[in-house]
């Protein structure tokens, strides 16, 4: 079920009043059933995989807390981590390893024809963080299976995050008897439509140009591939942050507060800052459970670079079982290591023009890495890079479809204006609390709805991050 579909609208219109009026255990049961329906809308039987990871980590965390000896705690931690990762390995990485094994010329093994369960990487990482936090003694193990199931399965964040931490979400789910205030609903409502605008009016429209250039890259000049690459940078941002806005908005309408997942990352002035603002729930996960566990920056410069590289390579691998994602992670690891070596984040630009140049620098570097993310093969990525640098041919630039291209420009202009003048300074709650804030937000939401009606891509395409 996609947030940008009419089916979800009907689903939520039925769910919300029931959720509003129920309390405590009944509310939890309703949330659990609704999350099952939401997940089973994709491939029903895969809900069993979800139950399996829930049971593994529920049991592991309980045992970790109950065990007295450190050795037993560690054994149960390993049990939780290995089994959860095993599920991820079987469904996501099995074929990748088989392909590489076959390519190496060893014994030929057949691939498995399995479809990746939607959102698997997200909910396994969420479960893993829970078990690790229980082991570290930062949170108590959840004894109520229903509450824990809702923590993993809660439908707004189930398929593409944000990867919530137990210390934020579990306390909210525990009693589940909170009152949904008017501010909760209103802020969530407006945020949902802002996310929908980003997805339908910017990401889905930009994807038309991106697909046209990338799917036909052999016949495109470098200039069009460059524009396609820049537009993909916008597309993936609006697709994923739009999804996050919708997820956070839906949760907020239900009275839950999720952590922020994006903070206008393309206004970053260095790559380090970019990764603090992009997919925050994943980058903080990688920082807390990989980078710091590897030693972080505690053991000298070389080891810091090594740790950064390992973390980013694994972060790339988390996205998908392909060398392209690993290379994408590696490129970002190199950027971060380079910046650390020259200590770029310490040089804060004073003047607008310098800030602007730094923002463009970050956008260009990040866009370059996106080529590997978007390309379907290494050969495609390298051909595109080669064409951009050696066959630019600016004179052969085409808009492809002037109507679509104008819509893209309009969408990006509105996005930039809103982010620069509004969301860089104020949160939705701050906007709501201003004088007549609710009415101003309502007027903007109506304007966004009309923009979607006039310009939005109405085909209801999937979110890019659903594949992860």
């Amino acid at each position: 079920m996609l947030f940008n579909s009419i089916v979800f609208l009907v689903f939520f219109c039925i769910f919300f009043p029931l959720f509003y009026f129920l309390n405590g255990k009944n509310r939890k049961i309703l949330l659990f059933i609704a999350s099952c329906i939401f997940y089973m809308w994709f491939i029903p039987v895969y809900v069993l995989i979800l139950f399996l990871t829930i049971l593994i980590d529920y049991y592991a965390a309980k045992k970790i807390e109950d065990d007295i000896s450190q050795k037993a705690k560690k054994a149960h931690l390993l049990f939780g981590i290995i089994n959860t990762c095993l599920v991820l390995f079987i469904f996501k990485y099995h074929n990748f390893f088989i392909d590489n094994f076959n390519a190496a010329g060893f014994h030929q093994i057949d691939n498995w024809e399995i479809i990746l369960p939607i959102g698997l990487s997200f909910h396994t990482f969420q479960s893993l963080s829970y078990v690790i936090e229980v082991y570290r003694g930062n949170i108590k193990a959840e004894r109520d299976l229903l509450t824990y199931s809702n923590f993993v399965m809660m439908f707004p964040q189930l398929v593409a995050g944000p990867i919530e931490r137990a210390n934020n979400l579990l306390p909210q789910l525990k009693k589940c008897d909170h009152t949904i205030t008017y501010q909760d609903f209103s802020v969530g409502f407006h945020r949902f439509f802002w996310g929908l605008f980003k997805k339908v009016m910017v990401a889905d429209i930009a994807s038309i140009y991106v697909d046209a250039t990338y799917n036909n890259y052999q016949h495109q000049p470098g200039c069009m591939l460059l524009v396609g690459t820049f537009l993909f940078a916008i597309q993936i941002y609006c697709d994923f942050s739009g999804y996050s806005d919708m997820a956070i908005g839906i949760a907020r309408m239900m009275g839950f507060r999720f952590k922020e997942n994006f903070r206008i990352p393309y206004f970053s002035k260095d790559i380090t800052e970019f990764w603090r603002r992009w997919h925050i729930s994943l980058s903080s996960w990688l920082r807390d459970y990989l980078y710091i566990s590897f030693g972080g920056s505690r053991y000298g410069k070389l080891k810091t670079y090594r740790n950064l590289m390992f973390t980013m390579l694994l972060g790339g691998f988390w996205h998908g079982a392909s060398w392209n994602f690993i290379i994408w992670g590696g490129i970002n690891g190199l950027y971060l290591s380079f910046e650390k070596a020259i200590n770029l984040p310490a040089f804060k630009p004073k003047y607008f023009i310098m800030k602007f140049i730094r923002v463009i620098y970050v956008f260009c570097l990040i866009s370059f890495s996106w080529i590997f993310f978007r390309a379907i093969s290494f050969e495609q990525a390298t051909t595109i890079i080669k064409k951009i640098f050696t066959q630019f041919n600016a004179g052969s630039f085409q808009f492809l479809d002037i109507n679509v291209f104008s819509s893209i420009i309009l969408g990006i202009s509105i996005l930039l204006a809103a982010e620069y003048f509004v969301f860089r300074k104020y949160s939705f709650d701050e906007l709501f609390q201003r004088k007549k804030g609710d009415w101003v937000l309502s007027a903007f939401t109506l304007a966004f709805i009309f923009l979607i009606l006039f310009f939005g891509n109405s085909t209801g395409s999937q979110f890019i991050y659903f594949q992860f």
Partner: protein
Amino acid sequence: MKKIISKIAIILLILLITDRVIAWFFSKTVFSHTLSGESGGSVNYLIQQKKNTAFLIMGSSRAKHHINPSLLTNVYGGNGFNAGINGTGGLIYNSLLLQLLISKNVVPKMVILQVDAYPYFTLEEENIIPEISALYPFIGDSKALNDYIHAHAGFAERIKLLLHTYRFNGKLLNILYNYTKRNTIKNNQGFEGLTGILDTVGLQPIADLNRKHTYSRIKMDALVSIAKTCKENNIRLAVVYPPAYRNMLYLQPGYEMISSLLQKNGVTEIYDFANIDPLPELQSEILWKDATHMNNDGATIFSAMLNNDIRAANAVK
């Protein structure tokens, strides 16, 4: 809850009222005066200024860019209009367009329908939205269109269409652009010749002869519907299978299937250019803009060939 419900109610009310006002105002003041473009403007032009057109060319971009009505001198002296449309000009679109035009008293004496066996006929998915959405601005004008949308578009689309501004989804900029050049249109016959020459490097056949194609039931129904509408309104229907460079889109089983379907429905006037192996006139790459579209020079040659074939058919008749 009371406050939440009243907020939703107020927003919905404002949304509905504003939607109706914007859609009505836009339709009356801009859209109905837009007489060119593929977002309904060329259909407006046909309805408002080409009521007496003797023949109509219908089809996809390969009709629009290949057949120049002014060169079809053997068909009512070339008094025709090319209503082909880029991208979405499949059979469903043309079936509905024909019904819309007839309801608006645009009844040509002849329809020249371009039909592709590939890809318009063989798409496995039956997503009809891109084809019918091109005609959304005319929903209020055609009962047949309205009924078809309600029967086939699906629940989600019907909900979206409750908002009238959605009829102009993806079309606004195109309409505004064409609206501003409405006065520059004089006697337009719809044909648009393409410029440029095909780069043959790396060309691969698109149609795969070995693949088992599934033919869309809904598109076959649309073809039958066109034949039926023409018969009921005394319109001569001729079908053209268009050429493609090096037979890139040639799909013999597909064309055989279409021919048999047409013959079953009483349509025998078929001009088959799908296989260009015996047609050396069309084989030079300088006549093609890309592998599936001829440039203006190619279109001129192709239109002349079609004109000759129609003359021969007229003689037989």
